[in-house]
């Protein structure tokens, strides 16, 4: 579904992503883990065309090189960015409506809104509240719900657990699992390696802008290097 070949990102001459290649198949959940500054966010931003990048990105058979960022959601790719990026001065309902901005199928949008409310009931309770006044966990839920309103086929998630209390992290991951179960393909970036690898079927480990390990989630969880570096053992 998604394929990156020799992807490179640099900031003013300093390379952050140094020629990585990976793939995500339809229906999988793939984890991309790594320490702070490894280049995970840069990778996702390059995929979402928010950053200029070298190399090839192919999504559903189409090269993304010539496509602007705002053309992606229409093709089925959505990004939940690091730090959520909800529209603070828009209400919860308006944020969700923005998620469906690219769509015109009004009946299906209403149905999806109901589904998102079922999945994330808190959003229904808070629908008139300004998103900027939501708690961090609620904002994460909103960012996720908003992305779902675009009916993505591929969901890119950047650190959904960041800054959340354990109980909330648990809830967020439960929701992600439920989304995956509906057939949405997911590329999950996480620092919480254990949680990510327990949810995903495959994983990549990124270090210093390179992919150093690629394996099934089970094998990575059992890998000595992963356990020492990311699971604190």
């Amino acid at each position: 579904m998604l394929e990156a070949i020799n992807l490179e990102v640099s900031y003013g001459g300093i390379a952050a992503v140094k020629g990585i290649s990976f793939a995500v198949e339809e229906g999988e959940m793939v984890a991309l883990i790594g320490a702070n500054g490894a280049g995970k966010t840069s990778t996702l931003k390059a995929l979402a065309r928010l950053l200029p990048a070298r190399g090839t990105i192919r999504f559903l058979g189409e090269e993304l090189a010539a496509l602007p960022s705002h053309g992606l959601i229409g093709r089925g790719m959505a990004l939940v960015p690091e730090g959520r990026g909800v529209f603070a001065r828009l209400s919860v309902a308006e944020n969700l409506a923005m998620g469906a901005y690219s769509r015109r199928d009004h009946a299906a949008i209403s149905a999806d809104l109901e589904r998102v409310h079922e999945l994330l009931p808190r959003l229904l309770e808070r629908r008139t509240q300004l998103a900027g006044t939501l708690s961090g966990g609620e904002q994460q839920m909103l960012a996720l719900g908003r992305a779902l309103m675009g009916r993505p086929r591929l969901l890119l998630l950047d650190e959904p657990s960041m800054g959340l209390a354990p109980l909330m992290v648990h809830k967020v991951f439960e929701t992600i699992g439920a989304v995956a179960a509906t057939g949405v393909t997911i590329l999950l970036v996480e620092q919480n390696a254990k949680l990510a690898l327990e949810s995903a079927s495959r994983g990549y480990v990124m270090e210093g802008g390179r992919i150093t390990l690629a394996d099934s989630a089970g094998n990575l969880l059992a890998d000595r290097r992963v356990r020492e570096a990311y699971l604190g053992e």
Partner: protein
Amino acid sequence: MDTFVQQIINGLTLGSIYALVALGYTMVYGILGLINFAHGEVVMIGALTALAVIKPLAGAGLPWPLAVLAGVAAAIAACMALGFVIERVAYRPLRNAPRLAPLITAIGVSMVLQQLAMIIWGRNYHSFPQLLPATPRAIGGAQITDLQIMIVAVAILMMAGLALLVNRTRLGRAMRATAENPQIAGLMGVDANHIVSLTFVIGSALAAVAGVMVSANYGIAHYNMGFILGLKAFTAAVLGGIGNLTGAMLGGILLGLIEALGAGYIGDLTGGFLGSDYQDVFAFFVLIVVLIFRPSGLMGEKVSERA
């Protein structure tokens, strides 16, 4: 008492015009963080275009209301096109440049438009025809003209329309989202360039109407009229809290009232030492006082954002 009511009426009229122009400044600032100093010139082009259409049409025997409507429509169309082109040519290439660059360009565009208007319309003051019968109506010991009623009513209608567009439509939602975070709005499928163009075009349409209003109100139009008016409207936008639509409306009305009341009473207040020609100073003085106590303007208060 007559002076007071009269100055309130004059102030509301003037304030409505300031508010329409101030909205253009504040909308562009809200989306791009840019002060479009050429906006006052768009007002001027609006006034002169209307004049250029109304005169010959009326001269050719078209009924007066039709000629006026055609003039206003032409002014709106011309200004919308102008706003679109200004953004495309002067600002878009500098979207990622340091903040000073578009500011200097804005001043350049302003000068180019003034010179252009001078070449087309000359340096003379043109008398602007009376759009509505000037018979005053008595109200509370003061007088109000049909034109003043019309100016306030049209301004209110336009502002209500804008508020509806921005707060209640899909497009308005996209505008607010883009103003807050263009990259994220882009991920939702919003083409930020469309939104920016649209913002310029809407602001310019308001400016066109304001241009016709101000010229009709004073009975005069000339190539240089946009400068002070633009500065005042910008002041109004800052007074209300730049980037905030309600603030621009409030700031405009307030500035009009302050100016009119100031002009009406400044002579009495200073024992005749300062005349009504000091009204501009009065307006800017109030701005400074407000900014000292509320640096972000009257409405420039952001909702608290939690990480």
